[in-house]
C-alpha cells in the first residue's frame, strides 16, 4: 500500500513520437485507479513508466514519496499482471507463483505457505503442479494474478488483464477482481480500453486520448459531468447522442433549438447558465440515449425510427431526424402500453424531448463543457 504521484510525466520515443504528454496525477494509498482510453492513447505507456519498463523522458514518478525514476523495476516493490499473462512456460504453476519469492531467497517453508495461500484465494490449488500450457485462459490469468499478489507489493499494476478472455469469462473475472481488491487492499493501477471495466472497477477513472488526460474523476463524476466531448462520448453505452444546435436566450430563459424544436433549459443547468451569463451561441449538445423520452405531438422534435432493437427490458430505437442526424433513444419497455409497443417499429414517426438536467453543452471549437 502506497501513494503514487506522477508529476509532469512525459514520454517521447526515439522517432520523436510523443506518447504521453504532461501527465499529472496523485493516487492515494489503497486507491483503485483505472487508466482508460482508445488504443494509442498512452495508458499502457504510463503504466509501464510506473513499472520501470519504459524510460521516463521528463517529469518524476514517486512511490511513497520516493522518486523512482532511476530505480529498476525490481527495486520499486510493485507487481504487474500482463495482458498475455507472461507465465514462465518451463515452470509449474507453483514455481511460477513462487518465482518472485525465490529471487528474494525466501525460505522454503514460507514460500510454500504464501503460494498455497494465494492459490486458495484464487481457486487454483489443484493446478499447482501443472505447466501453463495445460491451463485455460482464465486459469492462466489467475496464476498471473497469484504471482503478482504473493509478494504483497506496494502497488498492483494490471495491463488490460481481461482483454484476452471471452465475454462471459470477462464478466466473471471482473467480479473476481472486485473481490480480490477487497482482500488485497493495496493501491491498484488498472489499464483498459473498455469503459465498462473502468466504470465498474475504478474508484477514480483517468480518461486519456493521444497522450493527454481528458478527465480525472469518479465514475459518477465522469458520467454525469463530462469535462469535454471526448469523455462524454467515450463513457456510457450506447454512446451519448451529440449534435450541433443553437443555444438561445429569450425572455430571461435559455433554450436549445434542435431539429426545429425549441426546448427550455430548465432546472439547475438553466440557473447555472444564467449565473454564468453564457453567451447564446452555436453549441454541441449532448443527451444520453436513456435520457431521451417520448413526447407529445407538440413537444420536442420529430424523428423516424430506422431500426428497432429489442433488448428485453429496453427498446433501443435508432432514429433519424429531419436533417438526417442519427440518434439512439432508449425506452424501457415496462412503461409502454400495448399500442405504443406496436407502434414503435421501423418507419414510425414520433416526438422526442428531454429535460434541462440531462443536457450537456459543449463549445463548438474547443469541445469543452460550457458548465464546468
Amino acid at each position, binding site marked *: 500500500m502506497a501513494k503514487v504521484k506522477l508529476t509532469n510525466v512525459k514520454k517521447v520515443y526515439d522517432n520523436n513520437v510523443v506518447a504521453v504528454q504532461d501527465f499529472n496525477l496523485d493516487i492515494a494509498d489503497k486507491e483503485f485507479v483505472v487508466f482508460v482510453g482508445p488504443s494509442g492513447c498512452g495508458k499502457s505507456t504510463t503504466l509501464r513508466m510506473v*513499472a*520501470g*519498463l519504459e524510460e521516463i523522458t521528463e517529469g518524476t514518478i514517486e512511490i511513497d514519496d520516493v522518486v523512482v525514476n532511476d530505480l*529498476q*523495476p*525490481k527495486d520499486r516493490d*510493485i*507487481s*504487474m499482471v*500482463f*495482458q*498475455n499473462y*507472461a*507465465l*514462465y*512456460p*518451463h515452470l509449474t504453476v507453483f514455481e511460477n507463483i513462487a*518465482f*518472485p519469492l525465490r*529471487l*528474494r531467497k525466501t525460505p522454503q517453508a514460507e514460500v510454500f505457505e504464501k503460494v498455497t495461500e494465494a492459490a486458495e484465494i484464487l481457486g487454483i490449488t489443484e493446478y499447482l503442479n501443472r505447466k501453463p500450457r495445460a491451463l485455460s485462459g482464465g486459469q492462466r490469468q489467475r496464476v498471473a494474478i497469484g*504471482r503478482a499478489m504473493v*509478494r504483497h507489493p506496494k502497488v498492483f499494476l494490471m495491463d488490460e488483464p481481461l482483454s484476452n478472455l471471452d465475454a462471459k469469462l470477462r464478466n466473471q473475472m471482473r467480479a473476481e477482481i472486485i473481490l480480490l481488491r477487497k482482500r488485497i487492499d493495496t493501491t491498484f493501477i488498472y489499464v483498459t480500453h473498455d469503459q465498462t471495466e473502468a466504470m465498474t472497477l475504478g474508484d477514480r477513472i483517468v480518461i486519456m486520448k493521444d497522450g493527454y488526460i481528458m478527465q480525472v474523476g469518479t465514475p459518477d463524476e465522469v458520467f454525469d459531468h463530462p469535462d469535454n466531448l471526448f469523455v462524454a462520448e467515450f463513457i456510457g453505452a450506447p454512446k451519448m447522442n451529440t449534435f450541433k444546435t443553437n443555444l438561445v436566450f429569450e425572455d430571461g430563459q435559455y433554450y436549445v433549438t434542435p431539429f426545429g424544436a425549441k426546448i427550455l433549459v430548465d432546472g439547475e443547468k438553466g440557473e447555472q447558465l444564467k449565473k454564468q451569463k453564457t453567451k447564446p451561441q452555436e453549441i454541441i449538445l449532448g443527451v444520453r440515449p436513456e435520457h431521451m423520452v417520448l413526447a407529445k405531438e407538440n413537444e420536442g422534435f420529430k424523428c423516424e425510427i430506422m431500426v428497432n432493437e429489442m433488448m428485453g427490458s429496453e427498446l433501443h430505437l435508432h432514429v433519424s431526424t429531419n436533417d438526417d442526424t442519427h440518434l439512439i433513444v432508449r425506452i424501457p419497455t415496462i412503461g409502454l402500453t400495448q399500442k405504443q409497443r406496436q407502434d414503435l417499429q421501423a418507419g414510425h414517426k414520433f416526438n422526442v424531448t428531454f429535460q434541462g438536467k440531462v443536457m450537456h453543452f459543449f463549445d463548438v471549437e474547443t469541445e469543452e463543457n460550457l458548465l464546468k
Partner: protein
Amino acid sequence: MAKKPVSQKFKSRLSNGLIYAILIIISIVWLFPFFCLVCESFRCESSHQVGYIIPKVWGFDNYINLFTKTSFLIWYKNTFIIALFVSVIQTLMVLTMSYTLSRLRFKGRKGLMNIMLILGMFPGFITMIVLYKILSGMGLTGANAVPGLILVYTASSAMGYYVSKGFFDTISRSLDEAARIDGATRFQVLTKIIMPLSKPIVIYTILTAFMGPWGDFMFAKYIAHNTTSGMNVAVGLQNMISTPSSLTANYTMFCAGGVLVAVPITILFMSLQRYYVEGVTGGAVKG
C-alpha cells in the same frame, strides 16, 4: 455421360507412381558417390584411380597405411581439438551477441547490426593477409596452427548471430518484463528464464560450431602453410592427392581417409538433425 470417379484415383495413383520412380532415381544418384567412396577405400589391388567400382581384392590396407604412412592421425587429432574448442567458444560468442541484440535495448544497437551487416559483405578471407603475419609473428602458425585456427574461427564468430537471434526473437518479451518486475536482474532473466527455453538453439549452435572446422579448407590451409603437423583433415587429405604423382600413390588412402572423416560426422548430424532443422527453419528463413 458423367466422368467416372475412378479417373481421379487413377490419376493420383499414376502421379504417385511417377514420384516414387523419381525419388528412387534421386536416392540412387545421391548415394552413388558414397557407395563408390566406401568401395574404393577397401580396394587393395591398386592405389591409383581405376575405371571400376567393386574392388577385386578387399582389405583394410588403405586404412592401415593411412595411419602408419601418413600424418592422418595428427590431422584428425588437430581437427578434433579445434572443433571441440570452437564449439564451446563460438557458442558462447554467438549466443551472447544474439541474445543481446534480441532482448537488450541500448543506444547504438541498430548501428551495430548495420555495421556487422556491412562487414559481412567483405569476403572474410582478406583478413588473413594481415592476420597471418601477426599470428606467425606470435608463433601461432605452421606447426602451431591449431591454437591459431581456433583464434581465427572464434574471434569474429559473433557476427553469425542471425539464426540464433531469430530464435530468441520468438520468445515473448513480456516474459522478460514479468521476471524483471518479479525482481530479477537482466542477468537472472538470461539464466533463469531464457536459457531453459533455448535448448533447441543452443544445441543447434553447438552442432554447427562443432561441424564447421571439419570442413574448412581456406583458412586451415593458409595458417598451416605447408607444415604437415599443423594441417587439419581437409588440408591434409587434399595435400595427399594434390599432385598427379601423389594422386597415383595415395588415391585409395584418400578414400579411406574420407570415410573415416565422413562416418562420425554423419552419425553426429543425423542424431541431432531435428535440432538443426528447428534452428534453420525457425531462424534462418525469417530472413
